């Protein structure tokens, strides 16, 4: 007798800390849970490589919980379409898979914001998290010189990691003002669990050169990066280096939430007390609801997982979440981009790296939509994930509504109708 496939009781998209916490919490009552991730393994960006070789107690704990749970892992799967409510299509290296769910948790994380400046497209000018990810996936960095620049706490974490791997950190250039950073540090002391981090960071900062009020103005090199010129606390300075690791804080990955029709506010996914979005069966946790870091992501993930599986929400979790939510505002205020960064890019500098559209062309238009239609800015394979956040800052443009497929996929995947795909299920009936 043919068996009928069962939807997952809870399907989680994104295998970073928020997604792992959501999946483990939902599965703890024996409901069927799927955890889908587009990377090679789970862990997301912040816990990249921690699954095999945990260096932090909290990641070790959560991976342990995940391993001993009955969560079904679906790795290297990238959602590109929702053919009907309750069903997602994902591309995997082997085939397109169809996933049905009763409740969905979006834990899609964040990416770095990049801004155009002369030379930013040269090879070896990379994201700060980008360079760290490459080093974690086999790029030797010992003995190499690195300038770390941009804004946000990620810069310090990346510099510390690279230095531990033997890199020489020539400078950490943070665009935020000294005054804002001092205020940030003072506030950290009042955050639960952040004091130890702040002290550790303080020790580390004595070993490297850190400059607030500083940002990259140009990267130079013939075929690849040779040096960087920065504005260092008001004075220009050129530093030779092998790599420039440069990112301007984080932007949430909200494309899937938008595709599903979830309400967004100020660029973040709106959620209620239970992490439910404007669509009741869809929950959201972690960076897409506000850039707040790993502690908040873990708590939001637990709440979302418990709520999505109709379990009781412990008051302690809700309290901790609300306390840590203040950190989102603090991060936003501290690492808000200064207006000087709007004039780093010169007219001839490329803003859309997929289609090589220079700033001069894009600047003539008054909206993201008009610029896209007339210049092909944002029309390449990254679908505006890199130039969109840049033009959002430069011109205050807001992206249009999201249309499927939300990631490039093969024509055969688009031409197939639901029901013809490989079905990944939460069990048989």
């Amino acid at each position, binding site marked *: 007798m043919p068996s009928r496939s069962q939807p997952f009781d809870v399907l989680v998209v994104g295998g970073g800390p928020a997604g792992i916490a959501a999946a483990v919490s939902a599965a703890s009552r024996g409901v069927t849970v799927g955890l889908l991730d*587009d*990377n*090679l393994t789970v862990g997301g*960006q912040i816990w990249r490589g921690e699954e095999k070789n945990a260096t932090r107690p909290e990641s070790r704990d959560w991976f342990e919980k995940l391993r001993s749970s009955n969560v079904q892992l679906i790795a*290297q799967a*990238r959602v590109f379409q929702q053919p009907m409510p309750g069903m997602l299509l994902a591309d995997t290296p082997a085939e397109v898979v169809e996933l049905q769910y009763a409740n969905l948790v979006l834990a899609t994380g964040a*990416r*770095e914001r*990049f801004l155009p400046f002369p030379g930013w*497209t040269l*090879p*070896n*000018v*990379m*994201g700060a*998290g*980008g*360079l*760290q*990810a*490459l080093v974690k*996936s*086999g*790029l*030797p960095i010992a003995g190499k010189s690195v300038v770390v620049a941009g804004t946000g706490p990620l810069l310090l974490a990346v510099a510390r990691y690279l230095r531990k791997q033997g890199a020489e950190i020539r400078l950490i250039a943070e665009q935020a003002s000294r005054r804002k950073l001092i205020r940030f540090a003072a506030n950290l002391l009042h955050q639960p669990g952040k004091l130890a981090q702040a002290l550790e960071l303080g020790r580390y900062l004595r070993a490297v050169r850190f400059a607030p009020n500083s940002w990259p103005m140009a990267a130079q090199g013939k*075929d*690849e990066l040779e040096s960087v010129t920065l504005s260092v606390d008001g004075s220009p300075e050129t530093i030779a280096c092998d790599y420039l690791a440069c990112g301007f804080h984080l932007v949430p990955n909200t494309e899937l939430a938008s595709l599903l029709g979830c309400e967004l506010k100020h660029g973040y996914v709106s959620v209620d007390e239970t992490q439910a979005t404007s669509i009741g069966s869809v929950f959201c946790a972690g960076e897409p609801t506000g850039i707040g870091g790993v502690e908040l992501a873990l708590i939001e993930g637990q709440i979302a997982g418990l709520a999505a599986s109709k379990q009781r929400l412990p008051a302690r979790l809700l309290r901790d979440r609300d306390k840590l939510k203040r950190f989102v505002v603090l991060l936003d205020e501290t690492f808000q981009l200064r207006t000087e960064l709007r004039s780093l890019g010169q007219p001839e500098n*490329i803003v859309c*790296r*997929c*289609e*090589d559209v220079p700033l001069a062309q894009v600047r003539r238009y008054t909206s993201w939509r008009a610029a896209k239609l007339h210049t092909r800015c944002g029309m*390449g*394979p*990254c679908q505006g*994930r*890199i130039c969109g956040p840049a033009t959002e800052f430069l011109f205050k443009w807001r992206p249009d509504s999201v249309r499927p497929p939300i990631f*490039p996929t093969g024509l055969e995947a688009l031409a197939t109708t639901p029901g013809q795909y490989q079905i990944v299920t939460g069990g048989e009936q």
Partner: protein
Amino acid sequence: MSMPDRLTITIDGVPLSVAPGTTVAAAVMIAGKFCRNSVTGERRGPLCGMGICFECRMSINGLPHSRTCQVLCENGMEVRTDA
């Protein structure tokens, strides 16, 4: 079964030995090569490291536009840059 100490791939026909767990994007950087030529002919290397920017796309075993920061090296893999 124990993991091999090293793997060998070819990049534009040239063999390169890498440690297991190395992604194709990292291997191409180790080889000192660029990933792709942009639409106006600029040389490009990896940027985001997380499969979003598509700057590291190359051909792997004849399959074009592979996001190489998301692919682990396997013995005998043939990688083509267009730089």
